């Protein structure tokens, strides 16, 4: 609120994105609790949950309320506490982002979901294991400069390939870590925000599939494809206009598939894109200059707001890993088995 120059009395709505608090800490009612703590006496306070996309939902709803003229100012807070707790409990709680009644007995994990996608992508397109782990190597290199990263040490491709198996063919360094984190976004009508603000050109939410068996293919995901189509149309842009994208790299494989589904690179060419650095500095578009979830960590409910924070810093020209002259950026946040996808297109003013 200080950064935006907004007084707390102006905030008419507070959205709190959180996923694990009710399971791991036994705490709900986060809307009013955080409103009280921040002194937001005039705000309607609402918690939003959509697994990894929990706080992006709040940003989307906030944009719609502002656009409708209902809200004066909307504060969206994403927050998650994952460390210092029993690892088995955290892993078990994360599985609540799958359809447990239908797929819980089978032993599916999110690492398995992306391992299944990975093996099929390798089969269909000849993608090589090393190309997939290059996504981690790139993002870990980007994360070195980001003071908000959990991991600030670059890794080599050999280290990634030698790391222990989690869900063969997926290895440890193909996975993002559990993290504590929080981020906040303030929204308001264009006429009422200061010159530190950026423009929201598109805010899109699409419902995908909550079960792996609902998919006809694991090498592309319709919710991301549809969200991208709608976002580009709403913003009046093409994928090639983007200077940078913060996308949902919960696993290295997800970065390849998402880059294809967002139209940043052609279908099936995720491997070549990694070899030839199409999505790195000096390439076609910089993907995850913040270091992505693979470096920053993935504090589930905070990730959506965190991605927007990173893009805003880029558009202000203040990012520690700056994309030179960045004018147009995008966030892509996916919950569960791409059961919901949020995209935001942001532009410098």
């Amino acid at each position, binding site marked *: 609120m200080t950064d935006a120059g907004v007084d707390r009395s102006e905030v008419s709505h507070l959205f709190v994105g959180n996923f694990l608090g009710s399971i791991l800490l036994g705490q709900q009612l986060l809307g009013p609790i955080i409103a009280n703590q921040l002194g937001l006496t005039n705000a309607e306070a609402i918690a939003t949950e959509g697994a990894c996309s929990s706080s992006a939902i709040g940003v989307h709803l906030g944009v719609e309320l502002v656009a409708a003229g209902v809200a004066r100012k909307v504060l969206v807070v994403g927050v998650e506490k994952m460390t210092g707790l029993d690892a088995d409990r955290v*892993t078990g709680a994360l599985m609540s982002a799958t359809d447990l009644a239908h797929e819980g007995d089978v032993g599916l994990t999110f690492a*398995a979901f992306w391992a299944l996608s990975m093996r*099929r992508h390798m089969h269909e397109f000849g993608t090589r294991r090393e190309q997939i782990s290059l996504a981690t190597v790139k993002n870990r290199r980007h994360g070195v400069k980001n003071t908000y990263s959990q991991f600030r040490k670059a890794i080599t491709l050999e280290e990634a390939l030698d790391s222990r198996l989690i*869900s063969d063919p*997926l290895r440890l360094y193909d996975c993002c870590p559990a993290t504590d984190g929080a981020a906040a976004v303030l929204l308001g009508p264009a006429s009422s925000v200061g010159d530190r603000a950026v423009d929201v050109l598109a805010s899109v939410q699409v419902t995908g599939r909550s079960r*792996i068996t*609902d998919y006809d293919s694991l090498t592309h995901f319709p919710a991301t494809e549809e969200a991208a189509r709608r976002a580009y149309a709403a913003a009046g842009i093409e994928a090639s206009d983007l200077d940078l994208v913060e996308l949902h790299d919960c696993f290295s494989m997800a970065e390849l598939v998402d880059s294809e589904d967002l139209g940043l690179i052609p279908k099936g060419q995720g491997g070549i894109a990694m070899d030839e650095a199409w999505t790195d500095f000096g390439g076609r578009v910089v993907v995850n200059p913040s270091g992505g979830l693979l470096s920053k960590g993935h504090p589930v409910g905070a990730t959506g707001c965190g991605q927007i924070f990173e893009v805003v810093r880029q558009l202000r020209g203040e990012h520690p890993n700056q994309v030179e002259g960045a004018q147009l950026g995008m966030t892509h946040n996916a919950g569960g088995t791409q059961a919901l996808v949020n995209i935001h297109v942001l532009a410098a003013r």
Partner: protein
Amino acid sequence: MTTGLQAKACASCGVFSLDSSLACRKCGAAELSPILLTGAGTVYSYCSIQVPPTALRDQAPYVLLIVQLDKGPISLGRWASNSEPRIGMLVMGEPDAQKPDLIWFKPQSETATT
């Protein structure tokens, strides 16, 4: 022993589903009719899980696979054979006796002998 897999066929678009949804996963139509599939299909993808959910720790490592069943629906199941699965392999699935949502697959070449 149960043979075959319970599925539903959409009266509107013909897509098959294995789950208990009230509407078609493809077109959203509500008219679904029950049908029994043989359990025969083709391996679409597979992985071996070294780090399992806590409840399945004593079973790891185990192999999960996605099977494209004949007639169309995708099935997620576990591998019940000592052989290595591979993409394109012809397999046969059967529901677990206790947990009907858990389907065990093995190569069709092994099912003739059981």
